[in-house]
């Protein structure tokens, strides 16, 4: 390679760096920086009244899995924490599966309407988004609480004599999250189904496939990118949900989000909060990796 060529290459490289500087700056300030702070905090000691004291410690990370007995100083498994983690993962998975079960027929229905109808139906799906999340969640609270709309109506109709306890249970959290995140499942599914060539259905039936076989072997593989996108869009915010479990789950049915908030508030254990935040991030990353692996299997239409 000639000297001139090398010089030109170096200049190009310099220009490339200069041009990407704004993007790099934003990434550093908005993403890497805060993450770094959280990471550092997770290795510090908790201050008496919140905040942190400078001093390196693994206590916060150890505190995620084990807790120290305040009387005899022995360590045992922090099963309360594990319960919270398990509840978060379980409810998020349930929400993802259920929004798919409800969302797929919905998206299919919308995608197969005439174009005029489609726009209107999609608008209806997105309407809840225009309302504040808190208000929507409190509205669900009003419906399902013991003296709420649902129980009052059931009692008035004489179907039950004691209110069915829904509020402040895992089921209430699941119900709320399903309602809140359903549009995030429907929209990517709609986009995928909308692109699906309906003539392939006739080709499938023509080649002796039953309805179930057409669904399993033709529709699902082709709209898989939409299924994966919808699942990610529902699962990840579900895992970190804060408002819904706070209002519908009460104090006892905490999820990771509430548990983290607790550490920065009443718990006054910022390092533990920081370590929990990092743990949540790791769980999300692992889930994403699994999804990507799943998406790229058999040919990768992801």
């Amino acid at each position: 390679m000639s000297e001139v060529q090398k010089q030109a290459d170096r200049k190009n490289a310099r220009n490339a760096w200069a041009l990407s500087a704004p993007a790099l700056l934003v990434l550093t300030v908005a993403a890497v920086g805060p993450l770094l702070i959280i990471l550092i905090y997770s290795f510090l000691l908790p201050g008496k009244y919140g905040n942190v004291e400078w001093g390196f410690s693994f206590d916060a990370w150890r505190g995620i899995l084990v807790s120290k007995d305040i009387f005899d100083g022995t360590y045992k498994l922090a099963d309360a924490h594990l319960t919270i983690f398990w509840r978060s993962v379980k409810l998020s998975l349930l929400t993802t599966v259920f929004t798919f079960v409800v969302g797929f027929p919905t998206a299919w229905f919308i995608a197969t309407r005439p174009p005029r109808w489609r726009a209107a139906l999609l608008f209806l799906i997105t309407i809840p988004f225009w309302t504040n999340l808190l208000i929507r969640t409190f509205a669900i609270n009003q419906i399902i609480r013991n003296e709420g709309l649902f129980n009052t109506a059931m009692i008035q109709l004489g179907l039950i004599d004691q209110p069915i306890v829904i509020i402040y249970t895992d089921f209430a959290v699941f119900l709320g999250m399903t309602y809140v995140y359903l549009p995030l499942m429907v929209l990517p599914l709609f986009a995928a189904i909308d692109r699906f060539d309906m003539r392939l259905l006739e080709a499938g039936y023509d080649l002796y496939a039953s309805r179930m076989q057409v669904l399993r072997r033709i529709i699902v593989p082709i709209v898989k990118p939409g299924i994966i996108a919808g699942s990610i869009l529902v699962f990840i915010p579900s895992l970190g949900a804060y408002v819904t479990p706070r209002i519908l789950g009460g104090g006892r049915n905490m999820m990771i989000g509430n548990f983290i908030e607790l550490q920065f508030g009443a718990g006054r254990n910022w390092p533990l909060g920081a370590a929990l935040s990092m743990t949540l991030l790791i769980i999300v990353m692992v889930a994403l990796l699994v999804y990507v692996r799943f998406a790229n299997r058999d040919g990768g239409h992801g």
Partner: protein
Amino acid sequence: MSADAIIEAKSVTKTFGGPAEPVVALDHVSAAILRNEFFTLLGPSGCGKTTLLRLIAGFEMPDSGEIRLDGEEIGHLPPNKRPVNTVFQSYALFPHMTVRENIGFGLLMQGRAQTEIREIVDRMLELVRMVEMAERKTDQISGGQQQRVALARALAPQPKVLLLDEPLSALDYKLRKEMQIELKRLQHETGITFVFVTHDQEEALTMSDRIAVMSNGKINQIGSPREIYTHPVNRFVADFIGETNFIEAQLEKGVARLAGGARVAIETGHADGAVTLAVRPEHVRIATQGAQGAIPATVADSVYFGTDSHVYLALDDGTEVVARLGTDASGHSGPEAGDKVFVDFAPGSVQVLEA
């Protein structure tokens, strides 16, 4: 009906749209498609040819009438219960599968064994000359190759009848010519009955054993390409298949008299009255003055085409007639615009249509 018929449609009617504004796609259509023949449904768009094909495939159900396959009523069976396969106009190949998986799909759904599927698919790949492309995805092959895969996929389960819905319309001219020959070869080699839908009369004439010419939801005529070209039953068929001159005439005692007074010899067996004569442009000849049946005409225009020239003539009564005249070796193309000439029609070439 004929014992040799593989498909029989009996008075099939199909209507689309609500009861308020029904659109009749097929109006009491009856036809018999014979075993092992290349049968073409020909007509302009909206004539009902694709609807008839979709009724045979099972994508639509008839409002009334019967569709029989090998003597068995199938009109209301779903498509996956009918031993017929379709080559779609858009090909409708499965984009998430390889060429091999596409061709094997029907066999897989029939529950055939893996080894058997492999064997048949290999044979199909060879038949349509796509062996090297077997592991490609369908978006990595050309339009003509997709066409071959669609054919192989529909042929693999060895259907009793293969339905082809304008399969060549998306190909360019040269490829279309190639595929026409290819289709004839495949039909010959597999011995499967082909039912082919097209609006291209040339395609229909060159490929078919028999043609059904359709318009407005009805079959006008069924016959061999030769029959349909030389003996069209009505004005629509004569006009749709090839070019035709229509000349109004009066029949008197077996002789047709044109408005200008000229007499034209016709086949016997037609009742007297007003009729339309149909003459192909290649059967219009330049005649010598005073010869029997010579009709005076004026040349309006003459267009040179190389192999022949198209001469636009006006008869005395104002009727316009096109003649296709062969050119001689010197390149002389016959009469020029403005010439006064005499024309007659080749013996036996004049068809009498009920006016």
